[in-house]
């Protein structure tokens, strides 16, 4: 089985999409000779030339707008925000234009863009380069939000996102770029809006996103040694959220823990919990559904503080154990 890193998987998805469809173009800062801040677009300028790999000045609103305008003209632009945080400069174009245009114009236009947001903390980049903003976009009708946690999903979901006729916010994680995994060579698609159950278990439903998925699986391994069987679920697409598998899981396990890196308050975990408790699963709950998330603080730069701000493996193990043992 061929293994690639998440970075290589994304790069291969771009290559396959661009080979197959001349309408696919890339727009962003330093995506040319530099290969993107995280190397995802390496080699693509040489391969596709400057008409399709558009290296821009530092103008995030301009980039976001260029993506919207290109998409409404029938191209399939893939924008690169360099760091997820910089989308704060492009919110107007993405949210007020890209996401709303189709409805405002009564379906006359579609806006098939993908905006790649390299997000997340853990590299010591500090408070302005470590953010997780996915729930802002989950809160915007007209957008789809995708968040791959493995190299396999990175490729399959990116190809599907490029195919999609809607604006898709594609949330990557900096600490995953080097994560390796099986990645088939063909241009496979992982459909958007399909939740994946990664590990079956009867005691607890553990919903995790992005970098937390790996930690959740590790935690499940550790807990298995204590006889606690955790079901690990990765929604992969946050909007639209495929919630039935989560709800069915909670019906079986009676317990829910949602883990994400973004801060808890106002975050995606609230959405998952609210959906589960509003569903048939309500009657099967044996314990309060819980969230575990980033601490309510701008991510500090130094290692010890940064680690303290982010959910760690042992936090997941601890919260899961408490939930299963009814110690909450």
């Amino acid at each position, binding site marked *: 089985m061929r293994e690639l890193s998440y970075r290589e998987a994304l790069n291969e998805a771009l290559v396959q999409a661009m080979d197959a469809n001349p309408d696919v173009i890339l727009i962003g800062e330093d995506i040319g000779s530099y290969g993107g801040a995280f190397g995802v677009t390496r080699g693509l300028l040489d391969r596709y030339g400057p*008409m399709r790999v558009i290296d821009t*000045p530092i103008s995030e609103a301009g980039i976001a707008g*260029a993506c919207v*305008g290109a998409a409404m003209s029938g191209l399939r632009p893939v924008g690169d925000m360099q760091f997820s945080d910089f989308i704060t400069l492009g919110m107007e174009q993405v949210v007020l234009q890209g996401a709303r245009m189709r409805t*405002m114009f009564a379906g006359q236009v579609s806006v098939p863009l993908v905006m790649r947001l390299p997000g997340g903390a853990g590299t010591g980049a500090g408070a302005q380069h470590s953010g997780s903003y996915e729930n802002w976009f989950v809160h915007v009708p007209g957008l789809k939000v995708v968040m791959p946690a493995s190299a396999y999903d990175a490729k399959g979901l990116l190809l599907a996102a490029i195919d999609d006729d809607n604006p898709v916010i594609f949330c990557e994680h900096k600490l995953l770029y080097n994560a390796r995994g099986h990645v088939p060579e063909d241009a496979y698609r992982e459909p958007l809006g399909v939740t994946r159950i990664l590990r079956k278990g009867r005691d607890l439903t553990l919903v995790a996103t992005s970098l937390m998925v790996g930690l959740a699986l590790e935690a499940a391994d550790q807990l298995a040694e204590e006889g606690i069987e955790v079901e690990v679920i990765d929604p992969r697409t946050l909007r639209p959220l495929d919630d039935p598998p989560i709800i069915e899981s909670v019906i079986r396990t009676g317990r829910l823990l949602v883990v994400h890196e973004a801060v808890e308050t106002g975050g995606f975990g609230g959405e998952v919990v609210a959906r589960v408790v509003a569903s048939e699963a309500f009657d099967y709950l044996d314990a309060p559904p819980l969230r575990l998330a980033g601490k309510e603080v701008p991510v500090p730069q130094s290692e010890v503080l940064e680690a303290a701000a982010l959910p760690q493996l042992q936090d997941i193990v601890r919260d899961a154990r408490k939930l299963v043992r009814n110690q909450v």
Partner: protein
Amino acid sequence: MFMQNVSVEMQPLHLALEALGPDGLKDSLASMMLIRAFEEQVDQLYLAGRTRGTLHLSIGQEATNVGALRALKSGDRFFSHHRGHGHALAWTDSPQRVMADIMGKTGGFCDGFGGTMHMADVKSGFLGGNGIVAGSLPMSTGVGLAIRLRAEDAVCLVFFGDGAANEGAFHEALNMASLSQLPVIYVCENNSYAMSTPVNSAFNVESIASRAAAYGIPGFTIDGNDFLDVFHCVHSAVRRARNGDGPTLVEALTYRIKGHSRSDRQAYRSRDEVRRWQEPDRDPILRFASTLIHGGILDEGDIAALKATANSRVDDAVACAEAAPKPDPSRLMDHVYA
């Protein structure tokens, strides 16, 4: 290109005549008259409570609306802004549809979803109004990139106001377009105010067009109430864009005769100032009509006939829009996703 003392100029008339023909010129005046009649009517409808939401009227800016769009041809695209009835009428010549949109009825372009600021007729190249000041500018870059990539014989024109030229989006978009020499024409309708802010409180420079220098592109200030000046300047810019010579910034000096929007008490200007802009030597319709009469293209009778047609088309449009069904709420979610 801006002339302080506007006179009837025959040189530009001949140029426009060559490009548009006498019928094209007549149509252009008809379009300007349609806009005027339409907007006067909408103003009344608003006061009578028959429209809802906000309203930004194009009265006084007809020469810019029509003059710029007549410089485009089929296959070209353009973006309007919040003050877009004039653009929509000039491009689509469909007062019924525009009126239906403003009244939130079906039968317009956007079936009750868009309204006054959000009309579009995408297939025809009208890429939409915009509620966000300068909101279209970044998008025009993407349209320009698409045209360039596909080597289409087309251009993208984008309208925006004087106020919009102070948004960061203006800066980023013009710089990007210049770097890629995109076929985009930026038409700034400098109507002297951004809401309550007069241009001289919003800029410390002589002209908005002078900002073109900051991006290494040509910039022109023109008399936006002179159809011929607008047509001529935009036409040249379109030619440059088609030839691959990149973007142009055109600043058309004009005036907003009505208040900014429905809620404007207009404390920031005098009635006298407004009146001065309505005089025959400034009003864009009177000026263009007089040019066409002096040029021997139309006579007074033609003008009266055009005016009557404009009025009756607007009356029809109102009747039609009032008769059109309201949107069906069961269709609320129809367009959120493709």
